[in-house]
């Protein structure tokens, strides 16, 4: 079972929900796919160790063989390779590593080199939650290859794999959601929360992933998020109030299910509810 925690708007509580859900269920794998700023471990405080490097292929042009025809530069949709009167220049940070330039080169002047864009880390030692996280190197623009490689480590051995997605609706989010069984969209009952929730709903519907909404800080703002969910027939999985105790624990980096009674069970029930939704869907 693979569940992604996503949201259109940033700062709605994805990481809080992902970490608390993982702890409540136990024997869980938690993958922090927000590789530009992974922060699940602020709450778990595991010792992390490097598991592997993430590399991308980049073209290497043999100046002896190149006859400056420009086919490589014309082919590249990302402008990562430029053909000039005196030579060819490669811009590695724009390169998506597709290998097309090497294929179209009539002189076979292009071979591929690799460069590191990030790393994958894993809990050095775990008993309850097996945390994996991607870390994009500073200054690198492309998060998606790190996310794809991180997801290759999803294991069938655990109860559940929980994916903490980056915010928004762009490429890194699509990469995080690919292949998921279910998506929990975390939002808040504010005009921004509603606006960005609608964008996120469009994405998960296009991807064909079953989903539900979790309303965080549910007693602020107004009722429009709830009215929207009802009118769109979207299940509301849980409401987490704007509670001072939760905020204090958060500020200390303590997952609230470990301190506030009753919440562990609520997360377990939410998971059971999701499993039921999926089995009903499968039966239809």
């Amino acid at each position: 079972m693979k569940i992604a925690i996503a949201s259109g708007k940033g700062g709605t509580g994805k990481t809080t929900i992902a970490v608390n859900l993982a702890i409540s269920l136990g024997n869980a794998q938690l993958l922090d796919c927000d590789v530009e700023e992974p922060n699940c471990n602020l709450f778990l405080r595991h010792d992390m160790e490097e598991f592997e490097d993430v590399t991308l292929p980049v073209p290497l042009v043999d100046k002896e063989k190149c006859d400056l025809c420009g086919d490589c530069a014309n082919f590249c949709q990302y402008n990562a390779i430029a053909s000039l009167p005196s030579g060819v220049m490669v811009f590695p940070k724009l390169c998506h590593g597709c290998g097309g330039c090497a294929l179209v080169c009539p002189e076979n002047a292009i071979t591929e080199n690799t460069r590191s864009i990030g790393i994958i880390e894993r809990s050095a030692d775990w008993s309850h939650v097996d945390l994996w996280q991607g870390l994009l190197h500073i200054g690198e623009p492309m998060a998606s290859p790190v996310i794809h490689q991180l997801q290759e480590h999803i294991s069938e051995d655990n109860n559940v794999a929980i994916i903490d997605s980056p915010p928004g609706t762009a490429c890194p989010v699509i990469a995080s959601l690919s292949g998921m069984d279910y998506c929990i969209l975390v939002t808040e009952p504010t005009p921004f929360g509603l606006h960005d929730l609608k964008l996120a709903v469009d994405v998960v519907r296009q991807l064909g992933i079953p989903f539900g909404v979790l309303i965080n800080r549910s007693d602020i703002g107004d009722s429009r998020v709830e009215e929207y969910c009802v009118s769109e027939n979207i299940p509301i999985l849980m409401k987490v109030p704007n509670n001072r105790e939760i905020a204090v624990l958060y500020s200390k980096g303590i997952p609230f299910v470990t301190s506030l009674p009753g919440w562990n069970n609520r997360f377990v029930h939410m998971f059971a509810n999701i499993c039921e939704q999926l089995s009903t869907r499968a039966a239809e």
Partner: protein
Amino acid sequence: MKICVTATAEGLESSVDPHFGRCVYFLIVDDGSMDFESVPNESFSASGGAGIQAAQQVLNKGIDVLITGSLGPNAFPLISSENIEIYECATGSVSEAIASYKNGSLGRIEASNSPGKQGGKQRNGSSQKNN
């Protein structure tokens, strides 16, 4: 000698466009006869790598001098690798820019002076990350 000036529209009386990669027009001007050609920038609205495309476009015109307001980190090494002299001018008309170049009042651009798209990328909780 062929001088390329980035411009917001066609013709010598149009304003200098301060951006290289995403300028609207390139004016390719012969400084002797003042004959000119107005070439639309094909990468004006490119999603990424606009400076790289723009540099290839003007270099293939065989220019000797470039006058613009700013160049990004990708366009600068391309233009300078072809030994093109780059001068800074971000305001006024194209003909005024050429006159300033001729009387020696324009300063050289010796390094990238714009952050470009990647360097200027801001992090924000709800930002869209298009890669």
